[in-house]
């Protein structure tokens, strides 16, 4: 079978070659000069055709399929960057179309004609100054509006921002919440990471006791959130497309991004008319075999109260892993039991509590 296909391919190539040779010979007989002028016109018309069809295709697709490539935006700063994006789009599309048309029109209009002489036009300082200065001014305007937005986005988060930690690893995300009691993320140390203590919680810090883990990113609507981002093994990147948010996760350092979600999951379901709509988080820094599969579900609560209710319903990591009470310094264990919400009569709590206390 493959032999027949192979032979077929060879045959087709041989025929093409023969056609090419014969075409060449016919060309020799006919004379080249005239032919090359007519080919010149063919190319000029084709360039024109390309320009027209290209622009039509560009505008047609851009308008008709607008909804398929324009993701709805769901964050405060996202509305700003989207606005900048579309302003830049408007400016550049105008420039692009003008230059595009001019270029292809010139190639068509000034195609070779026997006997015509090109114009010796080597420079024109006025013209050159104009097209240096005009783009410079337009760019300056775009830059400054962009820089202002950038400074706002990257400025420090407000003090009452909700802090959430996102940790990337091959090939999944986890989120750590500070817990409702102290609202502080506890310290961590990568050397303390093991199969259960995946955050590397440093249990000598009492702020870790009520920290909890989530396999879904929960966010309040309308309140500032500060993401603290880190990675365990290689680079990853937090990408929340609907929130226009992206920040690398880097082993050995914390990166942050602050934002305010403006639409809850329910809002978005109503807006898109898709009852199954869900926000998603992706990884956008190549991190190995499973890079494409690092999906992290995102849920935006309708209100801050809703969000706090959810927070309160979560179990502290220490409560889920009470055997780690042993790692808590003895003098802090009681506080840990209370803060993590571990039942005082559970086996681990009794084991962990200093003997002196039980004797009393």
């Amino acid at each position, binding site marked *: 079978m493959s032999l027949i296909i192979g032979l077929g391919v060879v045959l087709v190539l041989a025929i093409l070659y023969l056609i*090419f040779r014969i075409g*060449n*010979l016919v060309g020799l007989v006919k004379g080249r000069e005239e032919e*090359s002028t007519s080919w*010149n016109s063919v*190319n000029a018309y084709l*360039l024109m055709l390309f320009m027209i069809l*290209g622009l039509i295709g*560009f505008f047609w697709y851009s308008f008709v399929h607008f909804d398929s490539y324009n993701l709805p935006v769901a964050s405060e700063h*996202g509305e700003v*960057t989207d606005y*900048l*994006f579309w302003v830049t*789009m408007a400016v*550049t599309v105008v420039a692009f179309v003008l*230059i595009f048309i001019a*270029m292809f029109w*010139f*190639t068509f209009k000034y195609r070779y*004609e026997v006997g*015509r*002489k*090109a114009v*010796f*036009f080597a*420079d024109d300082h006025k013209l050159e100054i104009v*097209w240096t200065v005009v*783009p410079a001014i337009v*760019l300056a305007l*775009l*830059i400054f509006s*962009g820089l202002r937005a*950038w400074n706002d*986005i*990257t400025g420090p988060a407000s003090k009452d921002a909700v802090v959430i930690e996102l940790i990337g690893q091959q090939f999944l995300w986890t989120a750590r919440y500070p817990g409702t009691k102290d609202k502080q993320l506890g310290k961590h140390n990568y*050397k303390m*990471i093991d199969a259960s203590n995946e955050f590397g919680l440093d249990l000598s810090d009492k702020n870790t006791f009520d920290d909890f883990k989530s396999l879904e990113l929960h966010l309040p609507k309308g309140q500032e959130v500060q993401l603290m981002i880190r990675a365990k*093994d*290689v680079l990853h*990147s937090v990408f929340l*497309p609907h929130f*226009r948010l*992206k*920040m*690398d996760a*880097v082993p*050995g*350092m914390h990166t942050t991004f602050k934002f305010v979600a403006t639409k809850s999951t329910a809002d978005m379901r109503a807006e898109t008319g898709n009852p*199954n*709509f869900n926000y998603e988080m*992706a990884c*956008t*820094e*190549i*991190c*190995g*075999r499973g*890079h*494409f*599969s690092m999906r992290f579900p995102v849920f935006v609560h309708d209100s801050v109260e809703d969000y706090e209710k959810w927070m309160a319903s979560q179990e502290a990591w220490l409560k889920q892993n009470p055997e780690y009470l042993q790692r808590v310094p003895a003098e802090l264990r009681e506080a840990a039991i209370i803060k993590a919400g571990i039942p005082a009569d559970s086996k681990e709590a009794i084991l962990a509590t200093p003997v002196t206390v039980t004797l009393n």
Partner: protein
Amino acid sequence: MATIDVHSHTSTQHDDHGHEHEHHHGNFWTNYVFSEDHKVIAKQFLITGMAWALIGGVLSVLFRLQLGFPDADLSWLRPILGGWLTPEGKIDPEFYLALVTMHGTIMVFFVLTAGLSGTFSNFLIPLQVGARDMASGFMNMLSYWFFFASSVVMFTSLFISTGPASGGWVIYPPLSALPQAMQGSGLGMTLWLVAMALFIVSSLLGGINYITTVINLRTKGMSFTKLPLTIWAFFFTAIIGVLSFPVLFAAALLLIFDRSFGTSFYLSDIYIGGEALPNQGGSPILFQHLFWFLGHPEVYIVLLPALGITSEIIATNSRKPIFGYKAMVGSMLFIAILSFVVWAHHMFVTGMNPFLGSIFTLLTLIIAVPSAVKIFNYVTTLWKGNIRFTAAMLFSIGLVSFFLTGGITGIFLGNSAIDIQLHDTYFVVAHFHLVMGSASFFGMVAGVYHWFPKMFGRMMDEKLGYIHFWLTFVGVYLVFFPMHYIGIAGFPRRYYSWTNFETFSGFADLNMLVSAAAILTLTAQFIFLFNFIYSIFRGKVAPANPWNANTLEWTTPRHPGHGNWPGEIPTVYRWPYDYSKPGAKEDFIPQHIPYSETPESNLPHENELVKLEMNDGAIIVEDKKHH
């Protein structure tokens, strides 16, 4: 058929051979293999570069198959890919990353750096400045053979069992530093680093030679202000390369230390494979700074030669002087300088200090100004020309079109606030493939069509050139234009598949279109390959100056021997763009024609120069300060 062949040969009464081999004094090895002749070395670079382009293109079609036709059964590729296919006949996800990585590495370095600069800087610098050869033929030969050695190592890495480097062409650590992170970071990465070290040596040997030759070996009268724009472009490119490649070398060296000798330049606080590594205090961001300190100038190393080549081709085939010669040189100089201070725009969201982001946004958008000036100057050069659409000219127009289309999206990406969303999406892929990948590739192909007659003494077939151009031009737009939409929709790059995400579930149609167009575009390159090989042996015999061009290389015989000009090197009297000069008999006046021979077309200030020509033979006033 044989009789017709004979007929075709005799009827065009070509072939003045019989005398053309007498300048070869050495044996086969010294003439064709370890040659020190810049023209032979240029051809070696060209052919190696073309082989690499083919490999790089095939790799891209392989991963496009996965993206465009994710359900296709590729079992028929098993004889070639073997274990890289899953049992279901799909590409293995890790192999997918290897394909992407090697495609990038090969195209950026082996095709568009070595294949482009190596070919045309070598071929054109001595011929266009009027030199017998490069300043150091021996170093030039070494430059090719280091490149060859580098190629061998990189090629070998494609066949090892753990696969070639797979962490992206930017090889960011820790992924590239830790063999436990992915298979490709083992031996494949080691070979990548070795190959790149050799490559950098090659590039430096070449670059130093290009710079020296342009500065020291210009012929009589060839002042800097009379250099063709090609030479200016190669000159700036070589300077950029000499200044930036050593930094990549340093980055690679530190990475080698981290990988093999337990240092922690780039590594810190890593828990992988169930153990915490001892490395602390390093920074992955440091590598990114070092990498992009080369990586961004590299964009211009790739692009400037292509812009130089097309400046020459567009002027010649519009039969007009290039518009704004000084502005063209000035903008290239400005681009060359600015290319060193924009690197961190690749790193806006990597955790770099946001204040740096502001600075680099500012600098990045400044670099758009000279680029815009270049586009305007190209378009104005076409205006009121008398345009001949040779294949080379079509590809040059294609370059300007790509440079415009891809350049404009740079204004989005250079703006840090907008880049937050677009970074590492297909928008970036579309941007750089158009503005640097396709544009430079078109410059390279245009150069081959244009200078083929000087390289091989024969013409390439024009009609095949047209077919090649139209298929490639339309194909490239169909591949990369849809990617803008996919990118605006947020699709991340280097994804094996998007089906895990609802957000990225669309655009199966566009991805299929892109893949089909990629296959079409690759197929069209075989027309070029056929044309190239066929024309070397059976093309129409080229006249000495087939395009009626002004530059010095067209004053050499059909087959320039070692030393380029049989007699004395011509003296240069004028700039290279005296096309369609009012009053002139023909529509071009080559650089070696003195003003005293063209009284009918001289401009007033040129008539002044006639006297100087008479006085001291050749040298013109402004030239004295250069000697």
